[in-house]
Structure formats: structure tokens, C-alpha cells
């Protein structure tokens, strides 16, 4: 239960094609993250799977059955929205019970399931409050509770953490991952935050302007990006790109080096440059180095690197850590 397959699915709004025909397979129990910059069509894709938008062409299969024309309520999927979308006039209990009530369960069963969900999500204390009396994190938990009581075939998350503050986001990220471990249900998660994608996903789908750029495990995308876009999007800080004669020396149009793969020394390295801003994060220091003939490079150095603004340093990229791209931006193997 819980496999989803998109076959030649496309979506147009009027004459604007936001998603050209694409194929995608999501296996049972997988945690799949759709990631990409805003406006890349990731939310639209999720809504097509949910049935909240109709596909323009193609088919959506859920558990091997064509669900293209089935209405959202009957697809057996649950969704958690960015704005939580709780029912403001209902208590937490009634919010969580709503899908069960709609499914026609009897009261005793509903109560038992709601209590279970509330306990799993630490909501028992707040069960009689209204959403307006809860904090952002608690509201998001209620939204998740409302999704899990239905025991859906798959969970759909539409940027569920972007309204939370940074510390809470890290906590909730962990909670959602733990939920996935314990429920073993398929989850599809939309985010623009590549850190969320990297830390949570079994499989990442990188989207740009409605086109799937690459599909793979987080480490696969990190190690073998298919093109410049994926190389630049996955990894933080962003990969450094160098064009021109320096790239041609490596037989490429563009070369890329991740900041964490650059080695800093006082002298004798590959490229000589001047340190601009040094950002101290404690554990790491991000150095912004200007190298003549190459441009600006970001270097991720250890926290105690002892380099200051204006220092002349030498930066080296190990040959095996250099990514090469052709003039269309595709990776050269």
C-alpha cells in the first residue's frame, strides 16, 4: 500500500504550461522530497497527486490503480498544509476527529483513535483548546495528527515547516523523520530548503521550471549531480563554479568545487587569493576568497583556521573533488 506512479503527467493553467509531461515513480514506504526554488512547480505536482488540481494530460496511479479522475477524498491520501489549515471553529479533538467522522466511524472508535494520535504527538494537554490558542509548532502537530488518524496510503506535506522558527523547525524535522520510521508509510514532502531535503529524504526529486532535473538519494545527488543546477542547489554553502581558461585546463566548460573540499594553506597551493569576509560559525569558518583570474570562492575551513580579512592565502582543490560540466551544463563523467 502506498506506491504512486505518474505517467506523462502535465499541468497547464490556461495557455501557461507549468509542468511539462513527466514520469515519476514513488515506491511504497519511501520518503520522497520534492525540492526546488519557488515557482518550480513542486507544490503543483503535489496537488496533482492529491487531486486538488486536475492533470491536463497523463495519469496518476495509486497502488497500481488509475486515480486520475478520483476525487481527493477518495484517494486515501492525507495532506499537511503550510498554513496548517486547521478548522478554527473546532477544538483540537474535533479537528483530529474530523476525517474519522467523515469516514462514518462510530464515536467510541473515533475517541480511541484521537486519544492515541494525541498521545503520540504530545497533544493530550491541549485536546480541548481551539487552534487559535496554540503555538505554531502545536498547530502543526494537530495538522499531522489529523493526517495520521486516517491511516492514509501516503502523507503529503506541503512546506509544513516554513512557518516555524528555526529551532522549532529542526525539532519538527526530527519528529517527522521519526514518524516516518515508526509508521513506515509513504511520505511526499515539498520544500524549498535543501537542508530539509538532504536530512529527511530517502529519495530527492529536484525540480526546476516544472522539469525534473534529477532523482536520487541525498548522497547520490551530492556526489554525482547530473548538471550545474543540481550541483549548485544541493549542498550548503553552494558549490563554487569556475569558467574560462582554468576550466579548460580540466577539459570542461565549467568546473565546480564544493566549499568543504577546498583546502587552505599559507602558500604553495593551487590558487592564490585574498581573504574577504570570514564568517565564524564556531565549528566552521566560511572564507570568501578572491582569486585573480578565477573570481570569488567560498571555502569552508575549520573553526580555528586563524585567517583574517586581507590575508593572502592559498587554496587547493584536490583533483578527484573537481566536478566538470560541458557547455550545456551537463556533468562530464
Amino acid at each position, binding site marked *: 500500500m502506498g506506491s504512486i506512479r505518474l505517467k506523462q503527467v502535465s499541468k497547464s493553467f490556461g495557455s501557461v504550461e507549468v509542468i511539462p509531461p513527466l514520469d515519476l515513480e514513488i515506491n511504497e514506504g519511501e520518503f520522497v522530497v520534492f525540492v526546488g526554488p519557488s515557482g518550480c512547480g513542486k507544490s503543483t505536482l503535489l496537488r496533482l497527486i492529491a487531486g486538488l488540481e486536475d492533470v491536463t494530460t497523463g495519469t496518476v496511479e495509486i497502488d497500481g490503480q488509475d486515480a486520475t479522475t478520483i476525487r*481527493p*477524498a477518495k484517494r486515501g491520501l492525507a495532506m499537511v498544509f503550510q498554513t496548517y*489549515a486547521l478548522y*478554527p*471553529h473546532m477544538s483540537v479533538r474535533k479537528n483530529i476527529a*474530523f476525517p474519522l467522522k467523515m469516514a462514518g466511524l462510530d464515536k467510541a472508535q473515533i475517541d480511541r483513535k484521537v486519544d492515541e494520535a494525541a498521545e503520540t504527538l504530545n497533544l493530550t494537554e491541549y485536546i480541548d483548546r481551539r487552534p487559535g490558542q496554540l503555538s505554531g509548532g502545536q498547530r502543526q502537530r494537530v495538522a499531522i495528527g489529523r493526517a495520521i488518524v486516517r491511516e492514509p496510503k501516503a502523507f503529503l506535506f506541503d512546506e509544513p515547516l516554513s512557518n516555524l522558527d528555526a529551532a522549532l523547525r529542526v525539532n519538527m524535522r526530527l519528529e517527522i523523520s521519526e514518524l516516518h520510521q515508526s509508521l513506515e508509510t509513504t511520505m511526499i514532502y515539498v520544500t524549498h530548503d535543501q537542508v530539509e531535503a538532504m536530512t529527511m529524504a530517502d529519495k530527492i526529486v529536484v525540480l526546476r521550471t516544472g522539469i525534473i532535473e534529477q532523482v536520487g538519494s541525498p548522497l547520490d545527488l551530492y556526489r554525482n549531480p547530473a548538471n550545474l543546477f543540481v550541483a549548485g542547489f544541493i549542498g550548503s554553502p553552494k558549490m563554487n563554479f569556475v569558467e574560462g581558461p582554468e576550466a579548460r585546463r580540466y577539459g570542461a566548460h565549467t568546473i565546480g568545487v564544493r566549499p568543504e573540499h577546498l583546502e587552505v594553506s599559507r602558500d604553495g597551493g593551487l590558487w592564490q587569493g585574498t581573504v574577504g569576509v570570514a564568517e565564524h560559525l564556531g565549528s566552521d569558518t566560511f572564507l570568501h576568497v578572491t582569486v585573480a583570474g578565477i573570481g570569488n570562492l567560498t571555502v569552508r575551513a575549520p573553526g580555528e583556521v586563524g585567517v583574517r580579512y586581507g590575508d593572502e592565502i592559498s587554496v587547493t582543490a584536490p583533483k578527484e573533488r573537481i566536478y566538470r560540466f560541458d557547455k550545456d551544463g551537463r556533468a562530464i563523467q
Partner: protein
Amino acid sequence: MARAVTNRRKAVTTLAAWGVGLLIFFPILWTILTSFKTEADAIASPPLFLGFDWTLENYGEVQERSNYFRHFWNSVVISFGSTFLGLLIAIPSAWSMAFVPGKQTKNVLMWMLSTKMLPPVGVLIPIYLIFRDTGLLDTRAGLVIVLTLINLPIIIWMLFTYFKEIPGEILEAARMDGATLWAEILHVLTPMAVPGIASTLLLNVILAWNEAFWTLNLTAAEAAPLTAFIASYSSPEGLFYAKLSAASTMAIAPILIMGWFSQKQLVRGLTFGAVK
């Protein structure tokens, strides 16, 4: 200095507001005062403001001559009936226009509003004939139907504005949670729109209560509401100002009281969305 200017300005605005308020209220006040006068005092020149012999005899006589409670009950049935029927039609209509708008939605809304700009007298004869042939003349059912249709554009417009304020994601969540269209409207949309629906209801009850063109033209005795009750005292011959005033006061009192108690709700409802 700044404070003095503010105070003076405040005094001027307060005075102006009271002036305008009294000006608007004056005809109603005069009607109420006149209803306690004798017919002779009512037409006295110069007019008597408070220094007259207060009497209740007009009220007694009006109740004797025509049955106030029958008219009152007709008014209640017609105004509440048409408002409830209107809401029943308008809630789903406004839902569809607010949440699944089509290319023509705006035009449909404008077209509905344009029907309110038509002089009703233009369609009086066809409607009168239809009512005569279908046996709806002088029936409460007939008036409920006609007033529902007359006020429907306003009800739909008001609800449309309130529904627009409700985030679509909440309705989508209901859809994902397995709610059918009716469950979505009944359990999610309507409870969330209660303030808006309440003020729409109040305003339309008032409009229907005060409606005097159709109620006068389509009724005779059986279904005649309070508007017809007042009209029966405005005769071209004879001077019955005091009795006319007593009848008017009795007719407007219920709605005036209702309006008074619900004015907070009305104002809130009418400015909903505008002051956010």
C-alpha cells in the same frame, strides 16, 4: 496648543455628528410624538413639540380598526421566510463563485447586481399576471418568493465577500479529510462564516420587512404585512395623521428594536474584510 486644537476639533465633530444623527432621526421622532397626539393637535399650527395632551387613544383605535397582530405575523413570515430561502440558495452560489470561480463569475455577479438597478415597476404587470394565474396573489408564499428573488443579489454579494476572506486551504483540507461537498459547506464553511451569515440575515430581514412596493401591490387582505397596515391609514381624504403615526410606530417598532440590539453585529458584518 496642539491639545487645544484637538479638543476643539473633537467638539466640532461631536456636535456635527449629533446634528446629523438627530436630523436623520427627526422624522421618526416626529412620527412617534404625533402618534400620542389627538388628531387636532397633530395638525396644529404652529406644530406642538412636547406641550400637548398625551393620549394613547390612537393605538387603541388602530388596533380596533385593523388587526395589528395578523399584519405583524405576515411581516415576520414574509421577511424571515424570504431571508432563509434566500440564504439556502445563496450559500452554495456564493461558495461556487468564491472558491471555484469561472471566467464569467465576475460578469454573473455584476449582472445580478444590475437587476437591483431596474425599476421594479417595469416588471410589475408581468409578475402580477403570473401571480394571478398561478393563484399566488395575496398569499404569503407568493410574497416570500418575490422578496427572495428581489434580495437574492444582495445576499449573494454579501456572502461572496465574506467567503472570499476564508482561506481556500481550509476547504481543501476538508476535501482531503474526506468531506463531500455538502459536508464541506455544512461543517467547515458555514460555521466559519457565521458572523457574515448573521449580518446578512439581519440586513435582509430589515430590507424585507421594509419592502413596500411588492407587498402593497401583490396583497389585499390575507397576506398583507405591516407596510399595508400603514398604507391603509394614509387616505387621500380626511386627516388621520395621528392614527397614521400610531400605525407607523407600531409597524417600525419591532425592526427598530431588533436593529438597535444587533447594531454591533450589523456594523461588524458590513465592514467585514474592509477594515482588516
